[in-house]
């Protein structure tokens, strides 16, 4: 089982190295352990996360690709679909069986034909368009709806942090 997972991960790593989607870098942190990956995701242009480079950790189960990996941002993140501790809550990361929120359609769920690339692209698209219905971070969802200006300001702050630049207020 683990052998198959390794082969698949290696293949996906190769694909992501040779033909990565724009603004995304992903791969195993250390090849001693192929089940722990690190990914850098650039905030899409034209959004409040523009130019931010957000690091995240992907942990793959040993029965990957039957079960989905888990994804967690390792930087500070303020987003309606990201838990305050950084865990990402999107439908593609959930197997069709478990549905914590009860709002997802099964077509967007995890299945073995999905891939790391697809997960990362989904994350890019929720950075561009947060899904306010799934309140992984209720405060963020609320602010995104009610006070977009403040939300933008916080996001901008985060972008600067990821780039190691001083905050705008400094």
């Amino acid at each position: 089982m683990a052998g198959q997972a390794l082969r698949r991960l290696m293949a996906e790593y190769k694909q992501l190295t040779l033909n990565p989607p724009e603004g995304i870098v992903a791969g195993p942190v250390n090849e001693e352990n192929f089940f722990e990956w690190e990914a850098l995701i650039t905030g899409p242009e034209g959004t409040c996360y523009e130019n931010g480079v957000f690091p995240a950790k992907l942990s793959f189960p040993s029965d990957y690709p039957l079960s989905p990996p888990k994804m967690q941002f390792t930087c500070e993140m303020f987003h309606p679909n990201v838990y305050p501790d950084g865990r990402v809550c999107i439908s593609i990361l959930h197997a069709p069986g478990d549905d914590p929120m009860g709002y997802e359609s099964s077509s967007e769920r995890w299945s073995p034909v999905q891939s790391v690339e697809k997960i990362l692209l989904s994350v890019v698209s929720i950075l561009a368009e947060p899904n306010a219905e799934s309140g992984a971070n209720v405060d963020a969802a609320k602010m995104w709806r009610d006070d977009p200006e403040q939300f933008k300001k916080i996001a901008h702050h985060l972008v600067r942090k990821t780039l190691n630049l001083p905050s705008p207020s400094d």
Partner: protein
Amino acid sequence: MREPDEDTEPTEEPSPSTSSTVPPLSDLFNQCRWSLSAESIIFVILYFPIGVVLSVIRIFICFHVYIAACLLPRNSLVRTVVLRWMWSVLGLVIRKDDSLVKGSHSHDPPRLYVANNISSLDPLVTHLAIDASSVERGLFPTWFLYAYGYGYDHKTFEDSTASIALYPEGIPTNGKVGLLQFVQRGPTKEWLLSEASKQGIQPLALSVERLLPLSVSVVGSAWWIDLYWLFFSPVTIFHIKVLPVIWRNPGQGKAEEGLLEHTRTTIAKALNLQLTPHTHHDYVEWMKRRTVGEYQSVVNSLPPELSLAVMRIKEILPSVPLAVIVNDIRRTGSADETISHLVDGTIPYTPENMTSKHPSPAVSQLSSTSSSTSMGERSGVRESFGRTPKIRMQSFEERKRELLECARRKYIQKHGLKFPPLQLESE
């Protein structure tokens, strides 16, 4: 001496074809290489080993012929004789019939030949028979073109005395049912035809016969496959009928179009073929529908869960031809294994051209609105995938750094920050 008008005038009206029903497009092409009947199959089976040996020997001889073609001077009698003789050893025999034009050369014959298209080897055949070059490059590689003088443009036509052959059908037909519409495509051909309307056109009627029930060209076949079967067959005889020259008719309004259609009628009459309203464009459309239809039926024949998986894989890897996916999933029965085969490169395939670079429409929208190309670079792309973990990890670290630096540069540029990009570089 023939009066061209006398000769060609009657062909305008009675064209036997237009009155009868139009043949379907699919009848114009050979769809399979072999057309076997009960009697011929035994002969073919007996011949097969001989054919294989023959083709191998001929492949080696072919190299010598190529060298000879490169060395012999163009437009010389020696070249024509030697090459035609050598090609008959390779199985390509050309019978030229110019009885219709014998003695009719009151002045120089036209240098523009127009022929019907019956195989991907036609340019080669006309070159050997009448030393004419072709405008069409066809699918031949450059080294082949070099030896046989294809790919002419109007400059060489003006400068030299070489003849040029055109195949205005645009695609080989089987030469048994009908002719496609003659169309002129591209500036070179337009120029040539307008030139020809002054000089006249020399129509050629091509036909081919073979001992084996083996088509010279089939739809979508590559030139080298056609060439292989040529080597395989004991002999392939191309008949070239040189038809009377068509001079420009002063009564015709649009000279080039009239001439071309006139030429088509003449060739069709000589070969006893129908004039069909189909064009090269119709052929392209037909091919598309044909392939899609074929694969659709193949996909539908799979068990439902597999056909669903095939569609999903196609979504993920849009450049992989559907047929490759279907074949592999038949064998593995698992979407996952097929994906890893495809991504690993264990199954070779020629990528289809993709219309969109990104599989996800949401993201392609995002990137199309972005101005990232203005930076003129894409960070984090690598040409190769390292062989050892060490190289890979190093490259991974580099790519991460590049991505971060690139984003910082963009950010600083956008917000007009003053400090130099490397001032706050992380440890």
